[in-house]
């Protein structure tokens, strides 16, 4: 059994409205010291067999768009 954690975020160069909106909300809740929020998606995937490479394939084929996303696979 292989467990992968795949994190998909927006590239630094792409504006993150979700992150910005969380930042704004936290500020309004009184947290003045929030400098930056970047939001992303995370997938915990259990495979009968496979490797980090399989995870990379998932990024390419389904989970991320290379034009805007970064996709990190951890095992």
């Amino acid at each position, binding site marked *: 059994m292989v467990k992968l954690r795949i994190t998909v975020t927006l590239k630094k160069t792409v*504006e993150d409205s979700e992150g910005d909106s969380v930042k704004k909300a936290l500020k309004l809740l009184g947290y003045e010291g929030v400098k930056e929020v970047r939001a992303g998606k995370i997938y915990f995937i259990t495979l009968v067999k496979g490797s980090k490479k399989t995870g990379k394939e998932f990024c390419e084929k389904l989970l991320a768009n290379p034009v805007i996303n970064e996709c990190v696979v951890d095992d």
Partner: protein
Amino acid sequence: MIEEEVSTIISVIGKSKEELANISKKLHLGLSAEEMSLISSYFKNEGRDPTDVEVQAIAQAWSEHCSYKSSKIHLKKYIFGIGREKVVALGDAGLVSLDDDTAIAFKMESHNHPSAIEPYGGAATGVGGILRDILSMGAQPIAVTDFLYFGTKKVKGFPDPKFIEGGVVAGIRDYGNRVGIPTVSGGIVYSEMFSPNVLVNVGCVGVVDKKKIRSSAITEPGIVLIVAGGKTGRDGIHGVNMASAVIESGEEDITTVQLGSPITKEPLIHAVLEANEKNLLFALKDLGGGGLSSVVGEMLEAGGMGGKVYLEKVPLKEASMKPWEIWISESQERMLLAVKKENVNSVLGIMEDWDITSSVIGESENGNRLRIFYNGAKVLDLESQFMTSPKLYERPSLIEEKRIVQYLPSFPNNFAKLLLGMISDRNVRTREQVVRQYDHTVRGSTVIGPLAGIVGSEGPTDASVIRPNWNKVNGVAISHGSNPFYSKIDPYSGGKAAVDETVRNLISVGAEPLGFSDCLNSGNPEKHKVMGEFVEMVKGMHDSAYSLDIPFVSGNVSFYNEAGRRRIPTFPTILGVGKVEDIRGAITPDFKDPANDIYLVGLPTTDLAGSLYFRRLKKDGGRVPYSDPRTLKGRGWNLLNAMRSGTVNSAHDVSDGGIATTISEMTVGSEIGAALDVSALGLRTDFALFSEPQSSWIVEVRSGREKEFVKYMGEDAIFLGQTQQSALAITRGEDKILTVDIDQIRKKWKRGYE
């Protein structure tokens, strides 16, 4: 004079053509050597070389996307002049009249290139941009529309078509749903012709009190310029230049990718409309292609004014932006408001109330020069007229004479199977997997949406109807027309067919057509054949619209859809709006009751080129269906009168798959079938059932009103049979042609969904 610290001087005076071309390339200006020479001689006259801000600004204004330099001559000749007396106003969107007080503002636009690179953001910002165009007229958006063209096979170096489709639909969904404007109409065409050149044509319709229509012209000095909405960033720089060239591969320059921010736009719509309602806006325009550069230039130029702008006052996302970047950035969700001095504080106050960033950035002046400053240094000083009037091209065009080869298919032996195949065809079957992801009831004004009929088993509609004012009974009908299959074979007839379909769809719901907007999709206009197709297309559109006396009030041209060495056919998507006098009389396609008479309004044809029937046989031959606008006008308006007098229960226009699929679709949203005899249609049975005659409808007549109906329609109505419980049965005199259960039809139509 110009100081060097904040902007770079670009040396163009005395340079050779070759050197100029290189400069254009290096700075991503997208201008030809010839255009660069014009710039060079302009500055020679000024006695100095330009700054980077100046050349970038000119390049924006002169891009194909902003200037229509390849198409304008033809648009002027064929499109702009029609039905002028029916146009209420023209601008970022065009306006026609709904009633004494209200005008309808509408426009279609393509977002093809951005969507091919990043489908989600490309489609989303397409919706954002078209909403701003409607807002620019001071109008309240009431509907968003999307016509999409997806490829069916993977092309090396480009994303999978499934991935593109998912991204495009999600982008439209997430943007449209979040701004709270219903997405109610559109279409989807699947064809290899769109691999890998996906097309995303989006539209928006709005309404405005005629007394509150705003123009974008600044006609007085001392008018203050306010930028409101999103902040300005590096995103979207050189977007227009990109849309004016062929894409080489799937991955492109990152700075042009944007995702859009609907929750910035949503309050901006409210705030701008509130300011307009209170008569606080002198003029306004949205920031789209070319950014501040295009908009400030065009607003001043339109009113014969000059002006000055202080770039350091523009709210930025990134402090390190260079002046030229600020000036041409295409960051989303921004509007430029032109406001009289005494109203500035009120306008800023409204923005503040809606939690929107806004800032005064400059003002208009007498004269014809535009001057831009950055922290005290002058970085641009140009005649706005020079910027906004690029060289127009009458590019050479070649019209190919095609030989018509006839093709006669062998007579089908199983009509039921044929019909069920057509109903489940990718280009016919339900679009629920898409339209149910779009909120089509938000604003509580959707009288007819994309689906209608018994709850839980709805069928397709032809046009949507929105009731813009809860205190009135009239409605705005919205529909589309497009047939790239016909256009590919014959661009002239394809142009006419698109107009015909748009009008048919509007009449189907009982609406009188009022106006069109168009998205003209094409390839590289520098190719003579492509330009030839373009001219043929606009001629076809002209001939139809001229006969009908219905204006094109807005639109957009998208050239260079030629990625991966494959090009799309040259064809229009048309958005039409119409008026429903009384929404309580609006009509949907689902059959209403058994034992009612069914008529064909129209005549089947022997022209089958491009039809679904031939496409499924993988055959080509003969001509594409012929649309005669005079027939359309006669029949269509007679049918409209028959509808208004209450003789019609249900109506559906004949399109892909012909009479047989049309009738089948009418059974989907009801529990009712039909028993028909097609002998009266003449022709071979397959031609009678599957040809796609233009200007035709299937109509269920209200019981007891048959005579009246026939009186309205005269010889244009051919009796086919009656509605009945549960099955669709077609005969030809004594011969049984087919019998299918309507549950089976519904199942086939729903294929791939649920």
